[in-house]
């Protein structure tokens, strides 16, 4: 691709970040990750199951030489829980990157941006590379940048909703002002949603449900890979302006009728 996505001091060729939840089974997940070309995969932090001896472990399936493991703080409703989860994740994973979530509401899973900013500031000071899941408010994004986040990750639409970019206007404004990578996180339902996010100028797209819960996750993963590349290429190619009227593609002179 040439152009790489830079987050903190790491560089990536792929602009697609994938979650690892909700796949029908691990082998399907492995194949989907593989065809997607992703280099970063998100994971959640949960208690080891001591009773069930639940055989297989996620990490057995993730080739860490290929993928950077990005722990999230999903299901945390307070900055304290999010910070604690991030700390544990760093200890378990030996990386300092974290996808920071502070959830504000169970039904929408929208972020609590007030606590998010505070947790971000704290974790940045603790040496983390913080990638916060946020709303599409440009003011919040700027504050997250100001406290030292390595990227901002606005939602396109509610997590798992598949509604695509609900407010391209806000996203455009957010992008114009951003000085760190902007990665759309959540709400992508199909390939064109990812392409639209990239065409707006986003630096990357993070998704999970859109692939994992598609009828054919592996093929959808490939669709998403292509869509992110298509959207990026279209963005840098300089699209034609929109017009209400037509402009002929075939010449008007040389007609014989």
């Amino acid at each position, binding site marked *: 691709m040439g152009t790489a996505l830079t987050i903190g001091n790491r560089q990536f060729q792929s602009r697609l970040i994938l*979650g*690892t*939840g*909700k*796949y029908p089974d691990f082998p399907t*997940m492995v194949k989907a990750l593989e065809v997607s070309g992703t280099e970063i995969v*998100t*994971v*959640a*932090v*949960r*208690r*080891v199951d*001591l*009773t069930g*001896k639940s055989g297989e*472990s*996620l*990490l057995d399936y993730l080739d860490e030489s290929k993928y950077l*493991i990005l*722990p*999230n703080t*999903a299901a945390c409703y307070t900055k304290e829980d999010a910070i*604690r989860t991030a*700390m*544990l*994740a760093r*200890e*378990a*994973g030996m990386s300092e990157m974290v996808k920071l979530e502070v959830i504000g509401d169970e039904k929408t899973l929208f972020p609590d941006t007030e606590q998010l900013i505070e947790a971000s500031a704290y974790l940045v000071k603790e040496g983390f590379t913080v990638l916060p899941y946020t709303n599409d408010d440009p003011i919040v994004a700027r504050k997250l940048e100001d406290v030292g986040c390595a990227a901002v990750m606005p939602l396109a639409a509610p*997590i798992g909703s598949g509604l695509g970019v609900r407010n391209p206007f806000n996203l455009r404004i957010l992008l114009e002002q951003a000085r760190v990578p902007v990665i759309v996180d*959540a709400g992508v339902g199909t390939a064109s949603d990812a392409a639209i996010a990239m065409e707006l100028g986003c630096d990357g797209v*993070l*998704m*999970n*449900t859109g692939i*994992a819960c598609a009828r054919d996750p592996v093929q959808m993963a490939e669709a998403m890979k292509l869509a992110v590349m298509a959207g990026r290429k279209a963005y840098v190619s300089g699209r034609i302006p929109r017009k209400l009227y037509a402009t002929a593609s075939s010449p008007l002179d040389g007609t014989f009728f």
Partner: protein
Amino acid sequence: MELIVNGSRYTFEGQVSVTEMLEILEIRSSRVAVELNRKIVGKGDYGATILRDGDRIEVVHFVGGG
């Protein structure tokens, strides 16, 4: 001695270190993190950290998530 590990009570005979607890509970993965009474125990301190009756321990790892 009773410990609360991941929210459930477990009884151990005699003193155990974090290393021993993990062995007894058959947690072999290196990719876990351990919290003792809300404080993270670094991997290098597992052997030297002796658990006490009533300690609350969390052992977490990575699972699929988005």
